[in-house]
Each structure stands twice: as structure tokens, then as C-alpha cells.
């Protein structure tokens, strides 16, 4: 600070400069070689145990990715009990079995099962988010999800109605609203997550994707009509479809990559945690290359390069994520009897996981 000119009294209260934010990079330190061995052993054990080991495999995999994701020198932790994951998977398997079984057995039974599934969706969603949050920790402080089932039902029904009434045009808004619910009901210790992304970002992302797809669709339509118009030869029309698909698939890939990048940036980049905030700068053209290389690698290796592909995605996501921390990251454990956390203890009763992550 500048020294005070002579004759001027020093000011009474000392001036405390507001803390400058620190830019903290997320980093994924896992390696494809290490994860490959974990993945292949876990896959084998899962098959040999007829799927029972899948719960342990899931927890190990998630823990591997969490523990290798660092920010500010510390990694995340996944603490789920594999037995609870197994319980969730058995429930899900029985429910799916009922759904598929009843399909061929009797129509009323099938419709009842479908109805139950639709009705149960918000409840399952809230449970899964809560389970995932409660078992995610950073510096020995856990996350929590405080969304209520009732609230989820209201939101779900409202959004379903809106979606139907607008013939799907409200889809970006619906997605924004659901994501907003999922993000802002999260706590990290006693810090609430806020979310600043706006619906217009979602509309813009999907519009961009649509713009990328339109020329490809137009070319495909033109080719199809031209070949059909020529002569009524089904074989010729089928042959003409090949170059059309060769245009549409890359366009689809590009559009998917661009939309995914924007949605990821909106999801992560909108998050505020107390005085701190996140930014995400994924780029569509990076994701095109990432997805394309992954696709070719996974297909050509008959699935053996899946671990490599997953590590690449994790590394990319982490390296484009930043935490801007104002002062030290300080959070405290929320006591179980405080409002907002009561649901956490109760939720243990119907505790299970179906594998939905934010």
C-alpha cells in the first residue's frame, strides 16, 4: 500500500482488501492403463458372479474416478456401501422383469406396471440424487440433496404438462427447470449450491444443434427424393441412402458434440457454492474429435478400449473445469437435526441407488 503523505493522519479502521479469487483447476490423474486392469477384472467378476459383483464394481469404479479428480490439492471420495447398491439393483431388476414379463402376459397388468413406473419416477429420482449426494464427499464433508419428493412430483407433473401442451417446444425450458431443481437442492456441508444458468442458454444450445443438422437433413431428403423420383426401384433407393447416411451421421455427431459441450458448460459453469463459483469451457469441436476417436477405438477394439475412452472423457471434463475460490474453501458439517437435513436421516430407510449421477 502507498505510504501516507506527511501530515495526513492514518485512517482509523484498517482497510481490509476483499480477498482476491483464486483460480483452481480440476485435474483428473487416473491413467487408462491402471483403470483398464480394474475394469477388466471387475467385468469378469461381475459376469462370473452373475451380476452380483456389479454393485462392488460400480462402487470401485466410481471411487476410482472420484479419488483421481483433484481440486485445490484434494480429491473427491465416493463412500457408498456396495450392499445398498446391490439392493437397489435387485429392486430395479425385479421391476424391469415385471415390466417386460407383464408385457406378454396381460394388457391391463402391463398398463398398471407402466403406470406405477411413471408414478414412481420422481420418487426414484429424488432417492437416487440423495443417495449419490450423501455418498459423495470432499475433505471429509459430505454433499446432501434436500429436494423433497412432493416438490419433485409437482415439478415433474407440471413439466410433463408443459411439454405436452407445447408439443415439445418447451423441452429446453423443461430440462433447465429439472436441472435447476437437481442442482439447487444440493448442499455441500452447510453451503448451498446456487445455479445461475438461464433457460435461454438451453434454447440457444438446441437451436445451434438444429442449425447444424438442418443442411444434412436437407441434403438427405434431396438425395432420397431424387432417387425415388427416378424410377420405382427399391434397390436403387437403398443404394442412394448410403451417401445420404454418410452425410447425416457426421452431422449428427457434430450436433451432439456441440449440444453436449454447451449443456455441460451450462450445468457446471452456472454453479455457485457460497462465495465460490465454477466455470466450464468445453468446446464442441474438441468433443467431436473426442467422441469420434472414442467411437472408432471402442468399435475397433471390440470394447477393450472402453476404459481408455472413459478416462479420456474424465480428463477432458476435469481439465476444462475451474473453481474460483474467494478465500479458503470453508464448509462445515450440517448437524443431522438441522432443518434441511432431516430428510437425510429418514432417507436411509428406503435407501438405494439406481446409478443416476448429476
Amino acid at each position, binding site marked *: 500500500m502507498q505510504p501516507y503523505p506527511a501530515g495526513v493522519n492514518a485512517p482509523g479502521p484498517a482497510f481490509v482488501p476483499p480477498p482476491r479469487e483464486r483460480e483452481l483447476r480440476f485435474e483428473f490423474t487416473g491413467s487408462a492403463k491402471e483403470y483398464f486392469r480394474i475394469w477388466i477384472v471387475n467385468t469378469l467378476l461381475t459376469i462370473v458372479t452373475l451380476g452380483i459383483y456389479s454393485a462392488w464394481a460400480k462402487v470401485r469404479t466410481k471411487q476410482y474416478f472420484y479419488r483421481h479428480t483433484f481440486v485445490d490439492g484434494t480429491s473427491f471420495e465416493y463412500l457408498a456401501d456396495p450392499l445398498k447398491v446391490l439392493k437397489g439393483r435387485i429392486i430395479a431388476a425385479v421391476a424391469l422383469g415385471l415390466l417386460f414379463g407383464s408385457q406378454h402376459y396381460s394388457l391391463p397388468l402391463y398398463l398398471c406396471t407402466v403406470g406405477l413406473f411413471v408414478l414412481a419416477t420422481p420418487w426414484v429420482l429424488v432417492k437416487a440424487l440423495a443417495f449419490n449426494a450423501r455418498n459423495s464427499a470432499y475433505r*471429509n464433508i459430505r454433499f446432501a440433496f434436500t429436494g423433497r419428493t412432493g416438490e419433485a412430483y409437482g415439478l415433474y407433473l407440471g413439466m410433463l404438462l408443459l411439454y405436452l401442451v407445447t408439443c415439445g417446444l418447451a423441452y429446453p425450458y423443461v430440462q433447465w427447470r429439472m436441472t435447476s431443481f437437481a442442482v439447487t437442492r444440493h448442499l455441500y456441508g452447510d453451503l448451498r449450491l446456487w445455479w445461475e444458468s438461464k433457460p435461454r442458454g438451453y434454447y440457444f444450445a438446441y437451436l445451434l444443434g438444429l442449425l447444424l443438422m438442418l443442411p444434412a437433413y436437407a441434403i438427405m431428403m434431396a438425395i432420397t427424393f431424387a432417387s425415388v423420383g427416378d424410377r420405382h426401384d427399391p434397390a436403387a433407393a437403398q443404394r442412394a441412402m448410403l451417401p445420404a447416411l454418410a452425410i447425416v451421421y457426421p452431422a449428427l455427431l457434430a450436433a451432439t458434440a456441440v449440444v453436449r459441450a454447451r449443456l455441460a458448460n451450462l450445468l457446471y459453469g452456472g454453479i455457485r457454492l457460497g462465495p465460490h463459483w465454477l466455470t466450464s469451457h468445453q468446446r464442441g469441436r474438441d468433443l467431436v474429435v473426442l467422441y469420434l476417436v472414442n*467411437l472408432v477405438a471402442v*468399435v475397433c477394439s471390440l470394447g477393450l478400449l472402453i476404459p481408455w475412452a472413459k478416462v479420456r472423457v474424465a480428463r477432458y471434463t476435469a481439465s476444462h473445469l475451474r473453481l474460483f475460490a474467494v478465500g479458503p474453501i470453508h464448509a462445515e458439517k450440517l448437524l443431522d437435526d438441522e432443518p434441511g437435513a432431516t430428510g437425510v436421516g429418514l432417507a436411509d430407510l428406503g435407501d438405494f441407488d439406481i446409478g443416476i449421477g448429476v
Partner: protein
Amino acid sequence: MTRFAGTYYDGLTTQATPVSLQLDDANVLHVDGLPAPVAHPLASVRISARLGNTTRALYFPDGAKCDCSDNVAVDELERRAGKAGLSRLVHALESRWRYALLAGLLLVLLLVGGAHWGIPFLARRAADAMPAAMARDLGRGTLEVLDRTLLKPSELPQDVQQRIEGEFAAMARHYPELPLSLHFRGGAPANAFALPDGGVVVTDALVQLSTNDEQVLAVLAHEIGHVHHRHALRMALEGSTLVLLSSAYFGDVTQLTTLSTALPSVYTRAAYSRDCETEADTFALHYLDESHIPRQRFADIMRALQKEMGGDSKGGLQYLASHPPTSERIKRFESR
């Protein structure tokens, strides 16, 4: 035991404190570097399982924990506590390339074996065990969908339909245990197929393509073979099992690629129907021989079909073709 370093988190705040840890002879773990000394009996400390070279955690009974990246020291703690067991075995498997390669080999054997023998075996058992009523419902739905989308009512002359129906009924009397029925349909290229409920659909184009009724009967015998072996049901069961399994195992990859999941199931389903066609061909061969119809009839109609479809599938695509190469099948009926 030597000292090792760690980072202590009390579980109440995010405060991180670098500490050093030491296990004494009485198996008590001392944590030094905190404002007040902390010590826990080793038996009350939960030690996170080793996973690659990720940071380990020691969970203390009061909710505090200590992160340690010194895997050797934590392994030694685990050994002293006498509670490593299964998790150490899993890590041993995961950490060595030879086990990973062995696992990969076993996995490939299991998957190939499962796809080749396991799922078809189970599907065959399930198809045989399925009640006739259930199979009938499945078949009825299929024909209804086909009628709405691909097929049109038959335009064959009534007398031709009646003649072939009569011959089919005579054939069906040989197999009283099968719920056989014949349907004529138009609007599709020359083809015949069997439904799960024992229905056999013949397109007008196939009847018109044939030069005599014995050729049609040879095709019908092939389709009855499909019904006899419950192929349609088996294919449906195999298909849904494969889709279910592949989505379970590749499910979390869908965000990386979507095409890679569809590929294996297409590949294996193609292989299944090859086996089914061969089985049905064998069935037709037996029928033709028993009924004293020359085998050449089947070869003739197949050749006509082949010409209609525009040639044989050749080269690398053969294994992906859902039928065995037609010329191979024709050869079976022409050789004695």
C-alpha cells in the same frame, strides 16, 4: 512401525491439517501434529480398500479421517489389523498385467461361449417351456403389425390359394403337435416366414415365382421346420436378452458412443439366424425325402429367389448376412 505422513480432516469442517502417524506396539495409532494429541486403537479404525494408486483413507470412530498416499504404510496397517482379506485379493488381481490379460482372455471366452451356446441354449429352453397360449399371443401381435405396415391382402386367385392350402393341410397332418396355419399375403417381395404361434406367411410373389407346387411345398416344409424348432420365439428371446445384457454392460458407455453397443448384438443375431436356417433346411430335407419330393425342388426355388434378389452375398459380408449364403444352401439340396 515407521512414521508416515497424512492429511487429517476432523469431519466437522473442511480444515486440512498435515499430520504424521505412527502405530505403537500396543496397536494404537497415534496422530501427531494436531493441537491436541489424538490416538485410536487400530481395531476401531476403518481402512479404505486399496484401489490402483488412489489415495487411501483411514476412518476414525469419531467421524474424522486421514488421507494417506503412502500405500505401503497403509497396507502394513491393514496387515497389523488383520483385516485385509478380500479387498486385498481384488487389488492383487487388478494391479498385475498378467491377471488383467488372463481376465481379458476368460472374458472373451465367456462372452463368445455365452453368445454362441449359453444364450441360445437358455432361449431354446425358455421357448420350449413357453405355454402355447403365450406363444400364440406373440404371433398374433406380429402378424397384426406386419399387416398394418408391410403386407397387403393376397391377390392370388381363390383356386390357387385353396389348392396350396389343401396341400399344406396334408403336410400339417404329419405334425399334429404343431399349431400350424397358413396365411397368404401380398405387397411384399417373394418371401415366406414363420411366426411364433405356428403361422406360416407366404407372399403372392413367392407363389408366382414358383414353377410348380412342389417348390412351394419345399419352402413351406422349411418354414414348418422353423415352427418345429420354435425359432421365431428363440430369436425374440435371444434378441431381447442380448439387448438387455449389452445395455447393462455397455450402458455407462452410451455417452461415449451409441453405435458400438448395437454392433455386437447385430453380429450375434446374424449368426443365430444362420444356425436356424440350417436347422430348418435339415428339417425340409427330411420332409422332402419322406414325402418322395425331389430335393431339387427346393434348390430350384432357392435359385429363382437368388436371381430375384440380385445375386449372392459374397466375401467379407457373408458372416453378417442373416441367411447362410444361398449357393451353400442350394448345394446341400443338390448333393446326395
